[in-house]
């Protein structure tokens, strides 16, 4: 008897356990089975639903006309069931109020209407809207209900309507070539290779006009740095700023400046000798400090090796020219600290910089540049500054942007606040705008450094 009880207990337990372990989905009703077949007849374009042509009819008279066809044909349904007269009357009140719109969507590969729904205006953006009646998802059923002529009118959109079709603005970083035309910092990636099938080595030509960290943005400098860059991506990514390391080497050349009239009465910084430029940047701190991933270390410097002769400047009268011959910058920047949604990802940075300042006398009668401050030693011509930056950057989507706010303070009391912003549409066309405001300028500095800097450049990027 006891054995029987145990056996019964085991059977009961098995039934309970197996019931929960092997629970079947509720079997479909005949209606649901046929509905599934109905829904499966068309070529499935589910993946394109968000790209299909979508619009809303809000013309109250047209909405009434269409709604009335549904009433006449007794085609209003709620939960698959016919509506009662009371239900129809209740819903018609919304039509009288003009608060109902028709939400429509076309098929992807042809022009037929695959989705039609009466929706209260305030429910249009709801995730699960309270429809006035069940949506019609078959163009031929809709045509059957409202008639071929009215269907054709709706389909061809010959009336007032609001277009809600989504446009695709995909941006992906390509590695075949990358032409980034920005007068302030252009680059042309012209060669690439891979060593593991996942990584990328890129060779580029680059240009650089001005130094933000020295509060010397482009236009205000008479020299342009051009050179070549090697960039390494550990694995290919859609975000071009996520390289592992980037080495740059270049030289400084004289540059022209647009809108010369803006600079009247102020000296432009000139290159006064052949200069070499180097920059190394990378997400390399993680190899030194555990957990320091995403901390980019940037080190860059320029060194001028000789002094030009006076004839390089073709002086017509005696004058003074200014020059920043050497500088060095060390910066640490942490990217992707936090995501602020559509505003982008937060990043902060900071560092120290040092730069010298030379004044030379040039004269048509002398073949050499004369250093006005020759009594100062090499080191004493340097001034040092600290800077901090915080910014937001966003890649992908329709609009990409990068905005950085910068504060800088140097050892001689000069400080500056700057905003550097880049905005691009589809990662192809954009604008680079940099504004800096200086404070605490002393009289000699004012000869070559203005209070306010405004520089900009259009951007064109072609990347495949």
């Amino acid at each position, binding site marked *: 008897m006891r054995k029987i009880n145990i056996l019964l207990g085991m059977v009961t337990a098995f039934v309970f356990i197996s019931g929960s372990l092997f629970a079947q989905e509720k079997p479909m009703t*005949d209606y649901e089975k046929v509905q599934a077949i109905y829904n499966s*007849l068309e070529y499935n374009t589910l993946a394109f639903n968000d790209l299909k042509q979508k619009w809303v009819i809000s013309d109250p008279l047209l909405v009434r006309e269409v709604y009335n066809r549904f009433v006449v044909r007794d085609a209003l349904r709620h939960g698959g069931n016919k509506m009662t007269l009371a239900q129809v009357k209740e819903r018609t009140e919304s039509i009288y109020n003009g608060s109902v719109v028709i939400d429509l969507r076309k098929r992807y590969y*042809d022009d037929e209407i695959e989705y039609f729904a009466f929706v209260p205006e305030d429910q249009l953006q709801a995730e699960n809207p309270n429809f006035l009646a069940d949506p019609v998802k078959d163009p031929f059923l809709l045509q059957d209900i409202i008639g071929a002529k009215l269907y054709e009118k709706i389909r061809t959109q010959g009336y007032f309507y609001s277009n809600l079709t989504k446009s695709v603005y995909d941006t*992906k970083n390509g590695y075949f070539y990358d032409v980034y035309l920005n007068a302030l910092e252009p680059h*042309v990636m012209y060669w690439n290779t891979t060593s593991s099938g996942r990584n990328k080595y890129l060779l580029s030509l680059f240009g650089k006009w001005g130094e933000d960290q020295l509060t010397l943005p482009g236009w205000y400098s008479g020299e342009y740095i051009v050179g070549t860059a090697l960039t390494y991506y550990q694995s290919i990514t859609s975000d071009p700023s996520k390289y592992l390391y980037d080495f740059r080497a270049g030289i400084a050349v004289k540059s022209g400046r*647009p809108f010369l009239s803006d600079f009247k009465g102020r000296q432009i910084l000139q290159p006064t000798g052949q200069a070499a430029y180097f920059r190394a940047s990378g997400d390399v701190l993680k190899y030194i400090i555990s957990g320091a991933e995403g901390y980019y270390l940037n080190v860059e410097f320029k060194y001028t090796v000789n002094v030009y002769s006076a004839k390089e400047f073709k002086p017509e009268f005696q004058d003074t020219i200014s020059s920043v011959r050497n500088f060095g910058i060390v910066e640490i920047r942490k990217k992707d600290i936090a995501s602020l949604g559509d505003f982008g990802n937060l990043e902060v940075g900071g560092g120290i910089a040092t730069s010298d300042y030379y004044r030379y006398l040039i004269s048509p009668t002398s073949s050499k540049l004369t250093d006005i401050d020759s009594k100062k030693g090499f080191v004493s011509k340097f001034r040092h500054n600290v800077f901090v930056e915080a910014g937001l950057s966003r890649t992908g989507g329709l609009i990409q942007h990068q905005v950085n706010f910068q504060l800088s303070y140097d050892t001689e009391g000069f400080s500056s606040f700057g905003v550097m912003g880049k905005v691009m549409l589809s990662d192809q066309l954009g604008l680079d705008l940099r504004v800096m405001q200086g404070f605490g300028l002393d009289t000699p500095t004012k000869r070559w450094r203005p209070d306010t800097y405004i520089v900009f450049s259009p951007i064109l990027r*072609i990347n495949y």
Partner: protein
Amino acid sequence: MIQKIIQMVILCGFLLPVFGQNLDELLDQVDLKLRKDKRYLNINYVVFPNNKIGEELKNLPRLNYREPISFKAADNITYNIVFLKEAVGIDSLVLLYVDQITDRSQGDNTGMFSATGGPQSDTVKALNFKDLYNLQRVRPEAYKALLTEVNRFIRENPDQQPSSLLKILPDEDIKTSLGVASRDNTDYLNYMRANYMHWYPKAKVEKKGKRGAAVATADSINYRIEAGFSRFTFSHRSMDFSLGGASIELGTSEKVLNLVPYQSMAVTGGFRTLVNIAQKKEDIDKSFIIDARLLVRLSLNSESMAKVPFAMVSSPKLMVGNAAGLDVTLTRPFGLPVINLFVMTGSEPSLKNPPMRLVNKDGKYVAYYNISSLEGSMSFFWNTSETMTSRFRLDVGAGYYDVHEAQYTSAYSSTIGKSLIQDDFYPMIALHFNFAPGGADIFGAMIKTLDSQVKAEGWLKVMELEGGHVFRFAAAIVSPPLAREKRLWESDGGALVEVRYRYGF
């Protein structure tokens, strides 16, 4: 009495819907869709073999007061069983309807109204979806017979898709959103064939012979010519060679200087050779191409040259000297982009009695001339879609040109001094666009900036006569300097319009 009750029940049974009201309506909607939607239905059919028609397919009931139907085993009648093979949420094959197709060209065609010019077959819906749905319940053996035949076809033909009723063509309408850039010479060749003044070979199109054998078409064009008001090029078949071909040219344009054709007061003649280094000459899409022009510029120094009626230019202020030049294009050497190199250098022009006489800011009598010019660039190509209707090319590089000043006495009979007053490099960017719907070149445009001046060129296909004679309307515009002051030797820009004839391209 009982018999009457039974009769009443049967009668009521016929009058009531066979299925619940909602289901009945849904079945009608499925049938409506199957009848009306001619393009989007992702459904298939197989032909039911005549020799498989058995007793179970006789006297099949149909709904909506339609007479029962029996499948007929006749030579001129076929039955297409239409079914839904696979879909999300559908775990087994579903029969949708059966079409009966009668071939009227066979069988009974002797009557007075026998078809002669109209359709040769009649298609009627033997069983619709509602009938089949009902058949599954009331005559399962008939439904099973149809289903078995479909399953047999699929089982016995694993590599053959059943005939489809889908009329949209997703395979031919695949869209991409990021555009394309070819990894071989395709984009380069498309551009050069549409815009370049010299001929580029095309891949030979093989035509099928009478018995399907491939027959290579013989190139029937013996010469190629482009002729316009500002340039002329010519090549003959006899100038083709195993690795490419050659051609000659004569023109009035300056590649680097910001001058409208004729404004340089010089003519340039050239010999062009195209070398296609590939294992097979036909593989030009993948080969390494060297396109080189040897140029000779002859200075005419006559202001009247710039006064041709189709050139709207101010008086030229910059002379050019006699010079020789080389213009080379290399396609993707060592995986690099397309490389373009141009150099032109020579001697100073005749400075005695220059056609333009200027006074510089120091009040001296002067004239200006150019001797050398250089340009180097890399070309990048892309298309906005895989149809290659909108084609782009971007040239990025640098250009150089020198300007010399000759100083004179007031009589301009002899120089009293010369100096090099400009010898700088400038960044150069040129953006090209071609519109070629369906591969037919309709329009081309180019905008280039060098040394703060803009040079724009464009052409529009006007007509194409039988035999490949193409006429284009073309224009070139040079702007005055932008964002800087105009130099003494620079003009205010100008424009040239012309008609170009092309044959053999």
